[in-house]
C-alpha cells in the first residue's frame, strides 16, 4: 500500500547549521510528494511539493528533490534559523494524503 517513512523523530541543531530531514515513500501510483510544516498550535502549511523526477524545488530557503529511483524526497536547508523550529511532515498524495510520522526540528541559539 501507500506509505511514507520519516526516520528522524527529533532533530536538534544550532542556528546556522545545515539540516536534512529524510523522507522515503512507497506507492504504486505516480508519486506526488509534499512537505508540510506545523508550528506550535498552528495549522499544517505547505512548504514544498513535487512530482517531477530529479528536479529541485525550493521555498523559503528549504529545498528538496524527488528521486523516483530511490523513492526519496529529503528536505534540506543550508542554514537553519530559530524560526524554523517546528514539526515537519512528509506526505504522499494518492487518493488521500498519507503523512509520515513527522520530525520535530528544534533550533537552538
Amino acid at each position, binding site marked *: 500500500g501507500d506509505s511514507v517513512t520519516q526516520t528522524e523523530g527529533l532533530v536538534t541543531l544550532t542556528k546556522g547549521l545545515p539540516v536534512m530531514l529524510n523522507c522515503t515513500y512507497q506507492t504504486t*501510483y*505516480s508519486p*506526488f510528494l*509534499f512537505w*508540510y510544516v*506545523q508550528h506550535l*498550535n*498552528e*495549522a*499544517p*502549511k*505547505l512548504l514544498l*511539493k513535487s*512530482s517531477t523526477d530529479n528536479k529541485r524545488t525550493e521555498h523559503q530557503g528549504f529545498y528538496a528533490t524527488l528521486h523516483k529511483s530511490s523513492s526519496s524526497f529529503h528536505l534540506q536547508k543550508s542554514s537553519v534559523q530559530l524560526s524554523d523550529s517546528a*514539526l515537519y*511532515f512528509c506526505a504522499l*498524495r*494518492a*487518493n*488521500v*494524503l*498519507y*503523512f509520515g*510520522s*513527522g520530525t*520535530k526540528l528544534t533550533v537552538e541559539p
Partner: protein
Amino acid sequence: NSKVIQTPRYLVKGQGQKAKMRCIPEKGHPVVFWYQQNKNNEFKFLINFQNQEVLQQIDMTEKRFSAECPSNSPCSLEIQSSEAGDSALYLCASSLSPASAETLYFGSGTRLTVL
C-alpha cells in the same frame, strides 16, 4: 493565515457525550478532508467529501463517528459517544479537486479533550 475555518478551537467533553466540530473550507474548494492528529502527532485520515458526497472514509466500525458537508452550510464531524482515546486534534483541510497534484489547505484544528 489559514482560510479554512474550524470551530470551536477547543472542545472538552465527558466520556459518553457527543462532540461536534465544524469546518468552513476555503472559498471555491469543493473537496474537504478530516484528519485526526494524536498526541504523538500522527495523522489518521477519517473521511473526505466532494461537495456533499463522500469520496472515501475509514472503516468506522464502531459507528461513533459521523460527518457531513451539506450544501450552503459548514461541514461537520461528530462523535456520538466520546471516549478517552478520541482526545486529539481534529484537522479539516480543503482542496480544489481530488486530483493528486492538488495541495490540501488545513485549518488550525479543533482540540478535543475527553475527560
